[in-house]
């Protein structure tokens, strides 16, 4: 018997690889002194942890070590460890993280003992299962009623006999034995060698072996199910292959989730002749499979490479485990590496289903790399991970396969033979079995893509590389720009016939989903061409993607169509998305016919500007959002044309969220065009300003400082042409005014533009005088613009409003030295020092940092066209949750920008949908307490600077706002989050995002349709104490509401350009004016929440602390009244009067004030 074949009954001397991780290898045991400190730290921490609500909980503190500790003589262990860290790991943090992760996923010794005991029991029970008399394979009457054969027996008739005999041998194989299995879901694979007497000659033909295998399991299942030892006995598939069921056994009672034992029947060694199972051979006869006689012309039977591989896999179970145990053997680093790789694969959903890149595959890959000396046995787990990723990233197994077989036997088939039958080739040590037989080219490319991304991440030396690499899940919906579901799956059967895939069907034993997968993905990849970066698919079977089905033994196995839907993920190339043209060959070229055949009726002959006449396909797409959705058109067209899959079966999830950022009337665009129009108008205006004649100082710079000018305004402005009859006129000031008897006029927000003037010594050096001079400039600007360009202008002391082509700009003149003058303070000694004052900070923010940020984000939009959509969706959502006032516009824009500048472990989003999902993910998972969000605009911060920023952050954490966003222009203060959000509001946002993300992802992953996509945009209202309902008549942006009303009020706008001699009503938004009043008067008693985009309700939350009765203070009587409570005079809020005040202050706007809780009547 070979050494690897051992009975778990006795467990015997386990192979070297099964040795539990030696004590000597345990990092903590290695260094007693260090361990002591770790323990101490833990204890301290747990003490801290028990102090509920203490502010330091979960907060990193700057490390303080005494001088004596820092400079004591190092011990040799310490030096060793430091050296090891330096040479084997990237940093000490990474080392500690890896160690922690391994501790988390590795099986404990205690559990191992319990599992071993269970395995011994399993072995006994299996051996005790009674034999059965021999029957025909087609006669299955002997099977008891409670169990069904776990196989689709199509066609049913198979010659041959079957009887059950206890297995000749029961062997533990797989990762449990090797010590590389990872928690949770511990699986122990047990191979049952069927006795030779059961099998007959030629069992390899026509699924006869698989039928016997299934019957073997059925009988076993029936007997084991009656045993009280087992908590559950179910069937499943081996790696998702539907011809190879397996039996899952779980212990009874509290250990039920401890372990799953998987029974794999396998043939006796050397039963099948390997040469019969080469990929070029046929083992499923057409005559049998299709029920028809072979064609008379003597055409050869089609080869059945997959079928052959599945048989071969069963014969090689033990040799593989032997190989792995010799390689991994005692090399702890290799085992760690395999465990890390398994986690890596699992986070990316790559390891499950038929053709997944399983843990076994990756172990074999490690063995291969050891054999070619790319990996050495002394390497650390981290180095193994890195080497494997490096190998995956730089090689292409679809072109140059690899093999573990180094024999020069000429009878072995060549790699090239395998390349003909399989997309990906990785041969095992026998040289006959392709380990990657089921791996599709798409899956392999996905693995390659992930490996490449991970390598970039590892090389970038990012601080949180570990977190992004191994701890961040990458579900399909969040990783791919567009998702599409093909459902019902039964349509794919028709597609198989249309694509003439009968040999593949025969090979796959009728699994039309797997059979069609390869050709289908190739078709789409070809069609999407330059638009596509990567195409991934879910791996059948499984009702949810990437999950192998399990079923009760009394049920039939799930049908192919039961696995729900085939889900495809498209990762798009933004630069390919701008073109509406598919350029084909010239008309007289021979390839033209292929092109026509491929595109069908969509291909047209077109004459181009250079005179060429070419075949071409032109897609209808006017706007950016439609161009983004061209892949949808391509996919539906190609699937209908070539695969007979009608449009109704293609459920495309790409632009569903677009509706939320679409303009009021426009449904074909998500506003990028309108924003671009506004930006163009701004460009023209800035040219006018540059060339203005007659200003005492010339304009030196014009900078935008408004969300529109960085493409992040949720609803872009449209040119306004007010109807004069709708307004009151104010001819002396050339202005229109709102009329009390009409609904509120349209809301027009002027776009702020900062205008810098050239430097001059003539400016006064006094703050008040500077303001007057600036005012004079504002007046002069208005005058000149009206005189020289005929623009309607209105000047005030701080700005000049300009009406240009229906857009309104607010020009603010800035003087560079003004913030500095505001900062100057003269000490008693006459020394002038600079100190920040609120006024100087505000001015600096408005005239310096805001324009810088605006131009940086404007640049980002040019690089990533999806930025605008993502930022606007994100803002829209935050505001729809009534939290908009807590966050500055800029802070949310920066969070959105972070998704593009630091997309790891993803790639920058190319569609608003995926960007928005990642926004929710970022917001809900980011640890704001201990980390600044660094947004490295224009890549200006070096790695060292970022490290410095992080340590500076820790040292000054307490003085910083709760949410810290760092940009190259703002390295310390996080100016955009200084005034909010408060910790409570941020917490609320985190909670809401964590709730919204799974709901939205579920909707988008639901092949039957997303349902109501606006669900996550509707705010919960039951938490508020008072609701103030507003009358839509005076809500100018009523039409922007999440649930846009069918009808609203006229807002006094003309459709056509009208006269522009009067300035429209600017910035008049009654709800905002109302809120300002409420906050000023009742701000210390309550919080007010409102959605500025057409909200019809204001949520009011009483502040519990302000409702504590307190004694009378002259400085704190606002809205309170004195009551006698227990003989004492105390002050409490005068809630009845305040509620009435709400109605009084908002007369005309407020429809009703609903007090919903009685909390204030304490």
């Amino acid at each position, binding site marked *: 018997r070979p050494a690897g074949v051992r009975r778990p009954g006795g467990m015997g001397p386990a192979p070297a690889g099964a040795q539990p991780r030696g004590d000597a290898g345990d990092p903590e045991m290695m260094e007693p002194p260090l361990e002591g400190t770790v323990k101490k730290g833990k204890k301290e921490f747990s003490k801290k942890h028990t102090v509920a609500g203490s502010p330091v909980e979960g907060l990193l503190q700057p490390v303080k070590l005494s001088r004596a500790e820092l400079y004591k003589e190092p011990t040799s262990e310490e030096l060793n460890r430091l050296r090891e860290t330096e040479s084997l790991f990237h*940093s000490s943090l990474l080392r500690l993280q890896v160690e922690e992760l391994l501790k988390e996923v590795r099986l404990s010794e205690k559990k191992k003992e319990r599992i071993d005991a269970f395995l011994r029991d399993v072995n006994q029970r299996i051996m005790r299962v009674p034999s059965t008399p021999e029957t025909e394979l087609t006669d299955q009457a002997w099977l008891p009623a409670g169990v069904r054969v776990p196989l689709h027996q199509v066609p049913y008739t198979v010659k041959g006999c079957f009887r059950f005999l206890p297995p000749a041998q029961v062997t533990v194989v797989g990762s449990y034995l090797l010590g590389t299995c990872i928690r949770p879901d511990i699986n122990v694979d047990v191979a049952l060698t069927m006795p030779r007497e059961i099998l007959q000659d030629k069992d390899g033909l026509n699924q006869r072996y698989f039928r016997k295998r299934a019957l073997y399991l059925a009988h076993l299942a029936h007997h084991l199910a009656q045993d009280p030892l087992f908590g559950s006995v179910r069937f499943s598939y081996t790696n998702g292959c539907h011809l190879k069921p397996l039996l899952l056994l779980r212990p009874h009672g509290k250990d039920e989730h401890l372990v799953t034992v998987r029974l794999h029947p396998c043939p006796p060694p050397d039963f099948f002749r390997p040469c019969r199972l080469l990929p070029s051979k046929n083992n499923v006869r057409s005559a049998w499979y299709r029920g028809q006689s072979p064609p008379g012309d003597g055409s050869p039977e089609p080869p059945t490479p997959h079928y052959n591989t599945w048989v071969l896999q069963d014969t090689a179970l033990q040799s593989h485990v032997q190989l792995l145990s010799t390689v991994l053997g005692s090399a702890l680093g290799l085992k760690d590496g395999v465990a890390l790789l398994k986690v890596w694969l699992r986070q990316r959903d790559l390891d499950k289903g038929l053709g997944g890149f399983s843990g076994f595959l990756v172990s074999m890959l490690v063995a291969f790399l050891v054999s070619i000396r790319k990996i050495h046995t002394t390497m650390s787990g981290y180095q193994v991970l890195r080497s494997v990723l490096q190998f995956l990233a730089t090689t292409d197994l679809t072109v140059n396969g690899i093999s573990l077989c180094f024999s020069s036997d000429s009878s072995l088939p060549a790699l090239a033979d395998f390349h003909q039958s399989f997309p990906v080739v990785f041969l095992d040590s026998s040289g006959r079995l392709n380990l990657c037989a089921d791996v599709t080219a798409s899956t392999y490319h996905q693995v390659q893509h992930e490996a490449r991304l991970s390598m970039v991440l590892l090389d970038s030396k990012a601080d949180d590389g570990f977190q992004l690499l191994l701890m961040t899940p990458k579900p399909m919906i969040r990783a791919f720009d567009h998702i599409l579901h093909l459902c019902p799956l039964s349509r794919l059967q028709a597609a198989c016939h249309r694509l003439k895939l009968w040999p593949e069907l025969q090979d796959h034993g009728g699994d039309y989903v797997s059979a069609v997968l390869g050709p289908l993905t190739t078709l789409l990849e070809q069609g999407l061409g330059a638009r596509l970066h990567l195409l991934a698919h879910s791996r059948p079977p499984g009702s949810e993607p990437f999950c192998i089905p399990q079923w009760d033994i009394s049920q039939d196995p799930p049908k192919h169509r039961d696995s729900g839907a085939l889900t495809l993920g498209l990762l798009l190339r933004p630069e390919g998305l701008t073109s509406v043209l598919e350029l084909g060959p010239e008309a007289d070229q021979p390839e033209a016919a292929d092109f026509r055949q491929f595109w069908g009726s969509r291909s047209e002959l077109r004459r181009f500007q250079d005179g060429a006449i070419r075949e071409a396909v032109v897609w209808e797409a006017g706007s950016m959002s439609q161009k983004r959705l061209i892949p949808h058109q391509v996919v539906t067209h190609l699937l209908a044309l070539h695969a007979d899959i009608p449009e109704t079966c293609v459920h495309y999830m790409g632009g569903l969220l677009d509706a939320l950022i679409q303009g009021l009337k426009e449904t074909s665009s998500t506003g990028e065009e309108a924003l671009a129009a506004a930006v163009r108008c701004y460009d023209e205006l800035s040219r006018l300003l540059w060339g203005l004649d007659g200003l005492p100082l010339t304009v030196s710079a014009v900078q935008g400082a408004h969300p529109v000018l960085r493409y992040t305004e949720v609803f872009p402005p449209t040119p306004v042409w007010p109807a004069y009859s709708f307004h009151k006129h104010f001819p002396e000031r050339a202005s229109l005014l709102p009329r009390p008897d009409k609904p509120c006029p349209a809301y027009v927000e002027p776009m702020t533009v900062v205008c810098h003037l050239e430097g001059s010594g003539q400016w006064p050096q006094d703050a008040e005088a500077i303001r007057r001079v600036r005012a004079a400039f504002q007046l002069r600007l208005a005058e000149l613009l009206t005189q020289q360009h005929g623009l309607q202008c209105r000047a005030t002391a701080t700005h000049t409003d300009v009406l240009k082509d229906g857009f309104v700009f607010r020009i603010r003149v800035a003087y560079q030295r003004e913030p500095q003058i505001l900062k100057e303070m003269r000490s008693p000694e006459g020394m002038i020092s600079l100190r920040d004052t609120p006024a100087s900070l505000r001015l600096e923010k408005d005239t310096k940092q805001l324009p810088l940020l605006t131009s940086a984000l404007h640049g980002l939009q040019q690089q990533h066209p999806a930025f605008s959509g993502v930022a606007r969706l994100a803002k829209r959502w935050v505001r729809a949750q009534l939290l908009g006032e807590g966050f500055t516009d800029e802070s949310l824009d920066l969070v959105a920008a972070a998704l593009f500048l630091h997309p790891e472990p993803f790639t920058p989003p190319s569609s608003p949908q995926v960007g928005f999902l990642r926004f929710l993910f970022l917001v809900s998972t980011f640890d704001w307490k201990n980390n600044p969000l660094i947004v490295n605009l224009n890549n200006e911060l070096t790695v060292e600077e970022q490290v410095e920023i992080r340590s500076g952050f820790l040292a000054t954490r307490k003085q910083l706002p709760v949410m810290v966003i760092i940009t190259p222009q703002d390295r310390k203060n996080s100016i955009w989050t200084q005034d909010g959000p408060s910790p409570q509001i941020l917490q609320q946002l985190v909670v809401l995002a964590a709730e919204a993300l799974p709901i939205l992802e579920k909707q988008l992953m639901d092949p039957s349709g997303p349902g109501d996509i606006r669900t996550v945009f509707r705010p919960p209202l039951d938490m508020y104490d008072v609701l103030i309902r507003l009358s839509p008549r005076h809500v100018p942006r009523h039409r922007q509401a999440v649930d846009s009303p069918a009808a609203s009020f006229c807002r006094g706008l003309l459709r056509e350009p009208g006269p522009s001699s009067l300035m429209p009503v600017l910035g008049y938004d009654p709800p905002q004016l109302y809120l300002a009043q409420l906050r000023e008067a009742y701000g210390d008693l309550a919080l007010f929440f409102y959605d500025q985009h057409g909200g019809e309700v204001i949520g009011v939350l009483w502040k519990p602390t302000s409702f504590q009765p307190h004694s009378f203070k002259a*400085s704190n009587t606002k809205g309170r009244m004195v009551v006698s409570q227990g003989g004492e005079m105390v002050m409490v809020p005068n809630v009845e009067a305040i509620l009435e005040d709400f109605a009084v*202050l908002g*007369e005309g706007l407020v429809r009703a004030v609903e007090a919903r809780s009685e909390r204030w009547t304490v």
Partner: protein
Amino acid sequence: MVARRRKRAARDAEEGIPSPPGYSAVPIKFSEEQTASHYLYMREHRVRDGAKSSWPQKRTLFVLNVPPYCTEECLARLLSPCGPVQSVELQGKPELTESPKEPKSKFFHPKPVPGFQVAYVVFQKPKGVSAALALKGPLLVSTESHPVKSGVHKWISDYTDSVLDPEALRVEVDTFMEAYDRKMAEEEAKAKEEEGVPDEEGWVKVTRRGRRPVLPRTEAASLRVLEREKRKRARKELLNFYAWQHRETKMEHLAQLRKKFEEDKQRIELMRAQRKFRPY
């Protein structure tokens, strides 16, 4: 008579509306329609001995908790039955001195949004104060004869007021700048006059306008000088020259590593506590 009335008011307050000691509470409502009311807490304006106050003693009424819709004119109207009112001043918080008399420019100091305020009401006679303290109310801010705008009407009139006359602004700016220029010219002339002229002890004042430029007396400039000195010194120093310097550099490196290690360990502890190592 007055004393009796005051006593009754005090008793009323005790029995009816509770009020803090020393104050009397007067209910105030926006109009007839409201059922609940706010309470003005009033007392005579007094200051502790020694504290200065620009408000006239005896004649000034101090009012707390004035609701946001109640303007100065309103308050004057509501209190005029108690006696002729000389002035009403509304403020965010109690302040002892009167605000400067010169009116703030409406161009450069836009009116803030009002909240709850305190008021100093100066009557022409001390009698007004005691009469006000005895008021029973409820006072009505908006009545048919004197309606007060609120809500949409108020916002529209505020918007109308915010559209200002640029000509007036120009005139104001011009007058301010003329005055400013005059002031600057005077200062300059004075400085010129004094330049180079020693004072009685013989000191000569050096100014920016002198013939030779001098270092400006700012903090930034002095810091710059210090920095330059430091750099100069650092350049002269030799590094890793002596053996002890070597040793120290090495030790410093080790200390850095140790510190980093401690930091990392703390980070790990935190992550472990947050269950950050559960991969899925």
